């Protein structure tokens, strides 16, 4: 396990491994981990969606046997819950979540696409009501086909019913 995680191991927290190369920053964006919400002294924070106070390290373009190249994100002192992390399956369907306690991997999970995704994808249809600035509406997508076994994930806009296959341009 540890060998696979490479570089400096973390003592406690979450390692997101096997992120598709080039997607690490999008992962942080989806997890809403950024300078603004990465405050100090909130180690016991139970907020979801943000890694308050956490030290975050990003490894990009790491050599990988399975994937050729991959990205890795490490979030210290914070065990990300599945419902927080599953959303990254949108762009990193092969990602693995490793929960680390005292330098040991105590749990390892795949990510699963949620059935419904709110507020992350922007609808590709410019005439969709979810793209109307004057309306108080949050985008919402229904997962039409999953990403298990390398199947291309497809999403349908809850509002206009348009399908999106490659979401990376619409985050």
């Amino acid at each position, binding site marked *: 396990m540890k060998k696979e995680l490479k570089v400096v191991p973390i003592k406690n927290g979450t390692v997101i491994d096997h992120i598709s190369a080039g997607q690490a920053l999008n992962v942080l964006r989806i997890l809403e981990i950024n300078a603004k919400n990465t405050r100090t002294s909130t180690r016991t924070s139970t907020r979801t969606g943000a890694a308050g106070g956490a030290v975050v390290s990003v490894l990009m373009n790491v050599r990988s046997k399975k994937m050729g190249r991959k990205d890795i994100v490490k979030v210290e002192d914070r065990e990300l819950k599945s419902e927080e992390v599953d959303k990254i399956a949108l762009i990193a369907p092969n990602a693995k979540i490793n929960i680390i306690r005292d330098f040991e991997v105590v749990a390892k999970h*795949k990510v*699963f696409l949620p*059935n419904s995704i709110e507020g992350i994808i922007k609808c590709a249809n410019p005439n969709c*009501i979810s793209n*109307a600035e*004057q309306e108080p509406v949050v985008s919402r997508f*229904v997962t039409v086909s999953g990403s298990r076994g390398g199947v291309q994930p497809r999403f349908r806009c809850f*509002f206009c*019913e348009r399908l999106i296959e490659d979401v990376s341009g619409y985050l």
Partner: protein
Amino acid sequence: MFTKRHLISTRDFSKDEIDFLLSRAEELEKFARGREQGWGWGEGEGEREGEEESDLLKGKILANLFYEPSTRTRLSFETAMKRLGGEVLNLYSTETSSVTKGENLADTIRTVSGYCDAIVLRHPREGASRMAASLASVPVINAGDGAGQHPTQTLLDLYTLKKEGLLENLRIALVGDLKYGRTVHSLAYALALYGATLFFVSPEALRMPEEVKMDLRAAGTAEAEAAGAAGAGAGAGAEVFETSDLSAVVKEVDVLYVTRIQKERFPDPAEYRKVAGAYRVTRGLLKENEDLVIMHPLPRVDEIDAAVDGTKNARYFKQAFYGVPVRMAVLSTLLGAGGERRREGEEKQGASKNARGNRRNSGVGEEAPRTLRERTADDRERECYEQHGKDAARF
């Protein structure tokens, strides 16, 4: 059986639910026929079905909220509501109304919800009705959202086919602009639920979009599975053929569903004239198949020759009339008046009936707004659990 609170998209409905609405339309059709309609006139006075009156929706108010002009649809809803004894508020997009004063749709919906028992919405943006349904405290009926859905049009098309005895084992050609024409997308989807054989006839540039075709396969499969699970046997599913040649399919089908090809889709006017000519329905074409039924969502321009109007093949004006009983069925079902739904509602209310005592307290008003998209999500979730088994409870 009928679980929907709103009518937003054909995709939301199962075949059973569509069947329910179509039977309801059949029951209500006698109220839709005006004296002057000419149909259903019997020999004697007593057989004039058209004279029957209904007060099924008495005391109910429908708000017609139209952000785009659509006289036909609006009038048809208005007639349906009034023939069942209800009242109609018309809110057009005019200079003086809030519709164009910059108030957003969300606020308008929340406000108008307080003035009526149901909202019919036509809006230029796709998904507008779906959003409205999530905000409204009354049922929302989508009367067209941009290039999106127009479910009551699909229902009246199906009703027309049913009245002609053609809905089962149907062979139908959808002709014209299959790329942008919204009526053909949702109609094709609904027909797939009925296991129809579909012929898509269009110029190369206006072919049925790939994602719609994909949807048809899914609709067929879902319905076949449902039939299998219920032990009904007959697996539905659409068989689809595509061609640019109208004359090639005329002998193959029972129905031609003709749609308008818009000039704006062709940068070259000469090309448009050529294409429009190739898809024109004339009396000459009818000679190839004398029993052919011609349908059209209207308004038509010149894709059907006026000489066809007087033939036994033409059904488009009758089809337009069927919008009234179908919209009656939709309104009465969503407003919880009559039919199965009302009985359910009455049982449920029982004790609370007198407590509130307002006119809205007679049907679905007590339920939380619900749309089928949510049901689909639920279904998906179940599916997901079934597939992943205990993996679903990972962590």
